C-alpha cells in the first residue's frame, strides 16, 4: 500500500493574512471607514471640541473655518443656534453606531433562527414562516418603522426595535434558502449518516457554512440600519431632541440650506461615507470568507 503524502508543502503564510489579501481593497477601505466610525463614536467626549448642546447665539451660522467669515474655534462652523457642527457630527456617530450594531445583530439573530427553522423543517413550518415573511415584506419598510416608532414612542430602544421588527425578514429569507441548498449537499448527507441530530447538524455543519453569507448580510444591514435611523430622526421620531443625530441635523439644516448649505451637506456626507463603508466591508468579507475562493 502506497503511502499518500501531501503532494507539495502547502504554501500558506497565515490563514488570516491570506483572507485579508483575498478581501482586497474593499475589505481594507470598508474596515477602515467602519473602524474610524466606531472609534469616533466611542471617543466622542474626547474628540469633540465643544459640548454638542452648547449654544453660542452670538456666533450662529458661522461657515467652516477656512471660508471667509469662519472662526477657528468652530472648525466646521456652527448651526442656526450657534452649536458646533463638528461636535454635533461626532456625537451623532454614537447613535448611528449603537443602532447599527445592536439593531443589525438582533435582526440577524431572529432572522437566522427562523430561517434555519424554515429551511430545515420544510413542510408546514416552512410554509408558515415563508408566508409570514411575504406578508411582512409587503409593507413598505420605512412606513412600518415610522408607524412602529410612533406607536412605541421615541427613544433609542424604540428605534432599534423598529429596525429589528422590520428587517429580520432580510436574514430569514436568505438563510432559509441557503439552509435548503446546504442540506442537499453531500457533506450534509454524510453528516446525517454519522447520526447527527437535526440540531447538531445545523449547528455543527450548516451554520459554519453560512458564516460568509451572514457576515456580508450583517455588514450591509448595519448600513441600512443607519439609514433607517436617519430617516426616523429626520421626521423627528427617533431619539429625544437633545441628542444630536445626523437625521435631525439634516432636518434643521434644511430650513436654512440657502444661507448655510454646509449644515445640511456635512451630515449627509457622514451618512454616505458610513453606509458605503459598511457596504464595502460586507463585500470584502464575502471575498475573504468565501470557501470557494480559498485555495
Amino acid at each position, binding site marked *: 500500500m502506497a*503511502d499518500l503524502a501531501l503532494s507539495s508543502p502547502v504554501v500558506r503564510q497565515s490563514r488570516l493574512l491570506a483572507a485579508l489579501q483575498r478581501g482586497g481593497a474593499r475589505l481594507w477601505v470598508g474596515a477602515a471607514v467602519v473602524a474610524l466610525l466606531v472609534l469616533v463614536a466611542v471617543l466622542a467626549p474626547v474628540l469633540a471640541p465643544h459640548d454638542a448642546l452648547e449654544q453660542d447665539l452670538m456666533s450662529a451660522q458661522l461657515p467652516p473655518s477656512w471660508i471667509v467669515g469662519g472662526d477657528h474655534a468652530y472648525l466646521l462652523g456652527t448651526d442656526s443656534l450657534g452649536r458646533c457642527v463638528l461636535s454635533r457630527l461626532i456625537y451623532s456617530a454614537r447613535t448611528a453606531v449603537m443602532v447599527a450594531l445592536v439593531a443589525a445583530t438582533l435582526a440577524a439573530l431572529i432572522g437566522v433562527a427562523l430561517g434555519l427553522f424554515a429551511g430545515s423543517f420544510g413542510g408546514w413550518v416552512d410554509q408558515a414562516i415563508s408566508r409570514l415573511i411575504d406578508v411582512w415584506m409587503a409593507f413598505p419598510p420605512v412606513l412600518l418603522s415610522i408607524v412602529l416608532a410612533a406607536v412605541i414612542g421615541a427613544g433609542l430602544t424604540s428605534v432599534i426595535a423598529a429596525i429589528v421588527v422590520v428587517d429580520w425578514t432580510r436574514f430569514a429569507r436568505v438563510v432559509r434558502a441557503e439552509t435548503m441548498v446546504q442540506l442537499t449537499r453531500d457533506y450534509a448527507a454524510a453528516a446525517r449518516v454519522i447520526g447527527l441530530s437535526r440540531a447538531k447538524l445545523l449547528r455543527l455543519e450548516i451554520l459554519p457554512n453560512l458564516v460568509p453569507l451572514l457576515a456580508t448580510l450583517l455588514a450591509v444591514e448595519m448600513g441600512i440600519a443607519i439609514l433607517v435611523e436617519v430617516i426616523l430622526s429626520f421626521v423627528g421620531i427617533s431619539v429625544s431632541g437633545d441628542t444630536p443625530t445626523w437625521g435631525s441635523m439634516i432636518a434643521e439644516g434644511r430650513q436654512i440650506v440657502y444661507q448655510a448649505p454646509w449644515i445640511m451637506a456635512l451630515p449627509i456626507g457622514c451618512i454616505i461615507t458610513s453606509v458605503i463603508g459598511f457596504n464595502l466591508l460586507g463585500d470584502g468579507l464575502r471575498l475573504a470568507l468565501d470557501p470557494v475562493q480559498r485555495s
Partner: protein
Amino acid sequence: MTATLEIDGLKVAIGAANVLRGVSLALQPREVRGLVGESGAGKSMLGRAVLGLLPANATIISGSITFEGRNLLAMHETERRKLLGRRIALIPQDPMTSLNPVKRVGVQIGNLLRHHLGVSKRVALARASELLAEVAIREPARVLSLYPHEISGGMRQRVLIAMAFACDPALVIADEPTTALDVTVQRQVLQLVERLRQRHGSAVLFVTHDLGVVAKICGSMTVLHGGRVLEDGETADVLARPRHAYTRALLAATPRADRPAEALRPVPPALIEQLWSEARRLDRLTIAGPT
C-alpha cells in the same frame, strides 16, 4: 448466527415510480457483498434505505430491513441515529463534496469520535491521527490541520474511509466509492477498504457498477436490475457460471485483459426491454394483489 443485515422483500416507490420491487438480500458478519447493476437499477436506493437517507418523497411500501436482528424500519429515529456512524457507516460516492468545506479535517473526524465515543477533544485528535496513519496518510498531524480543499481527492477519499471505520462498525455501505477517482487511485482505495474491513471486522455492502471491482474484493454478489434481484451468489460462481441472461450480457460487456476489445458486446436492447416489461408486470401484480 444472526445476519448483520437482512433485507426482506423491500419495496420502495418514489412518487408513482417503483424503484425497488421486492429486494431480498442478506449479509453475514464480515461478508463483503458486491451490489451491481446499471444506473437506475436501484442499488444506491437500497443503500440509502438502509441508512435512512431516502428522499423525502419516497415511501417504503413493504418489506423489512433488519440489522443484527433489529428492525431498522420500526425503530425510533433517535434509536436509529445511535446506530448510524457507529454500527452502520457509509463511504460516500464523491470525496470532493462529502467533507464539510469550511471545517478542518481534524475537527470533522474529531466531532465524529466525540459524538459517538464521548471522548475528550484531545483524545479525539490523537485517535484521528492514528486513523489517518491507518489509511496510509503521511504526516497525519499536518493533514488534520488542513481544510478539505487543501488535500487531493485521493486523500479526501482516504479520510472518508478512515471516518467510516472509525467506530468499528458492523456494516459499511460503500456507495460507488471508486467512481469519482482515477484508475490508479481506485486500486489503492480498494486495497484500503479490504485492509480496514479485515482489521475492524466489518461487513461491507459494496455498491458499484464495476464487475472488475466486485471480482477483486467481494466474496459474494447480487445483481440488481429495475429494482429486482436477478442473480445472487458467490462471486466466483456467478462470474464463472452466470445463470441469468442479464449477468451474462453484463460480463460480455466488461473489458478484460485476456480478450480483444472487439469481443466486447453491448447488452442487447431486446433483453433490457424484456427485463423492464417483467418489472412492469410485477408492478401490476402488486397493485392487483396476490391471487
